[in-house]
């Protein structure tokens, strides 16, 4: 795109941009490798070449075929989609709220969505619960459940947005509000749990920590469609986010419809969060940590920051999921337990180092 003509500025900038592109390509390559690793590792280890064979040729020629296509591949893809969705939501929320600590989990959207999903399953009867194995809850009406999760996460998003707008709240105040909303919705979930029978209870507890192994192919399909649609919308607005980075007035002066960008961004981020939570449960910190790692890699030009955050999110959750599968093998840990353990120290590190954007 950039011809290196005679201008040292333009050629210098060309190299600068090329480096960012290169980082994104490396991330993409790492993700490919990680997918193969993820599919081959688990309680049954599948040889590397068998894995590649099954992934590349759809014919049923290997005895591992059903493990790969029935279990490992959907789990792997679910981890990628959920991780990317949470990361991109975090990246967008951080810019539209001008808040470096923004993420679906820290601002209370995740637990609100989890409550909404539990509410739908228990009260509206959209799911059938049975407490065996990873599939503790089978969702019978995925749209209704997602819609309920979405509505409750929108409530959280609305409160945070109103606070940001009316009160010009500082990052710290927003975060404390997120903490409050989190405890409110956890209390709501506990209330539901109190009236649940023991089978339901076991299922609901299971749900408060997200597990990438929980989603089926069809649920993965819905998640993917919603997440991709949101990502397209976010990428379409990349210049608007860049302008917002320079402050509201500057953005308005550049013709950016600031209020609409903010509102729609929050709605889209809530939707992505809700859909992943209603299918696999709450996963904390990926939405916060992935954008911060990415910022250090490619800076915060949203043309590169958004795609790189998406890939970082996928990489982060997938590698966590692989570790969670192996760390106590043959027991398989839900990935959310691991991300919470990893996320807490990173969050404290961000607080100490001053979480500058």
């Amino acid at each position: 795109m950039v011809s290196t003509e005679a201008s040292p500025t333009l050629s210098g900038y060309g190299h600068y941009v090329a480096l960012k592109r290169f980082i994104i390509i490396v991330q993409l390559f790492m993700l490919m490798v990680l997918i193969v690793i993820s599919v081959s590792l688990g309680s049954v280890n599948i040889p590397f070449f068998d894995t590649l064979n099954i992934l590349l040729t759809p014919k049923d020629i290997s005895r591992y075929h059903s493990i790969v296509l029935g279990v490992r591949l959907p789990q792997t893809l679910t981890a990628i989609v959920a991780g990317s969705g949470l990361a991109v939501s975090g990246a967008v929320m951080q810019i539209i709220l001008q808040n470096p600590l923004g993420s679906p989990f820290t601002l209370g959207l995740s637990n609100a969505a989890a409550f909404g999903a539990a509410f739908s399953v228990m009260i509206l009867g959209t799911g059938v619960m049975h407490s065996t194995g990873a599939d503790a809850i089978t969702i019978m009406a995925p749209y209704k459940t997602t819609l309920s999760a979405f509505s409750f996460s929108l409530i959280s998003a609305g409160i945070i947005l109103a606070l940001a707008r009316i009160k010009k709240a500082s990052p710290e105040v927003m975060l404390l509000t997120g903490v409050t909303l989190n405890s409110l919705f956890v209390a709501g979930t506990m209330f539901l749990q109190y009236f649940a029978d023991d089978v339901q209870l076991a299922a609901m507890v299971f749900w408060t920590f997200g597990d990438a192994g929980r989603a089926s192919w069809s649920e993965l399909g819905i998640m993917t469609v919603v997440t991709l649609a949101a990502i397209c919308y976010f990428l379409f607005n990349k210049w608007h986010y860049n302008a917002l980075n320079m402050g509201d007035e500057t953005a308005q002066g550049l013709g950016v419809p600031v209020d609409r960008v903010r509102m729609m961004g929050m709605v889209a981020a809530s939707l992505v969060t809700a859909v992943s939570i209603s299918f696999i449960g709450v996963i904390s910190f990926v939405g916060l940590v992935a954008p911060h790692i990415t910022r250090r890699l490619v800076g915060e030009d949203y043309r590169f920051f958004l795609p790189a955050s998406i890939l970082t999110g996928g990489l982060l959750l997938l590698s966590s999921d692989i570790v969670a599968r192996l760390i106590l093998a043959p027991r398989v840990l839900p990935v959310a337990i691991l991300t919470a353990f990893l996320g807490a120290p990173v969050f404290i590190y961000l607080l100490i180092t001053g979480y500058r954007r």
Partner: protein
Amino acid sequence: MTLNVESLRFAYKENTVLHDVSFSTGDAGITAVLGPNGSGKTTLLRCINRILKPQGGRVLLDDKPVDKLTGKEIAKSIAYVAQKTYSGNISVFDAILLGRIPHISANVSDNDMAVTNDVIERLDMVSLSLRMLNELSGGELQKVSIARALVQQTSLILLDEPTAALDLKNQIDILKLLGEITEKNQIKVLLSIHDLNTAFRYADQFIFLKNGKVVGFSDRWGITAGMIENVYNVSVDLRWFDDIPVITPAN
């Protein structure tokens, strides 16, 4: 290009900030809006490019009413440089390139790159272009904001106290730069500023605002001590130094 403002009115709820403000930039390159804190300077600037929507009156660019334009169209003819500058982990080049947003459809064109490059070279910022904003000084950040406004290629630039955070040298540099821009590119500049003596030296005409009303409008020759005393409620001495009025507080 001429900016005409006709009986502009703006209120935050019951609190009226601008009462029937009217003026025209005429041929003057730099017009300075002067007045005490809270007199409505910032509000006036923001009403002109419709960051705030005035409740009455009209803003005309060469007889074209601004309220008939979309946000993007306004951004193609009026640039706004906010008082507060933001930094972050993005390069100077990228921060200036943002000025092309009103012109970019999906991706940056070669022309966008060329315009940005041209402004960077003209403002002597080549060595800065790949530095990150959060490594820059206040004066450099202000220069980035002005460069961004130039890249927007508008016929009018509004600046809200562009020199407020700057040291003497940077103040002079920025105002000289604005003077050169208005001369070379037929661009009009409207800026708010607190330092009267600096304003008198670098601007071509002056609008005095007091409680949201225009109480004085004059070129450099028409400045009197009485005008200043009326606007700021302090008694001042006015002396002329190289054909430029200089204000000092009277004893």
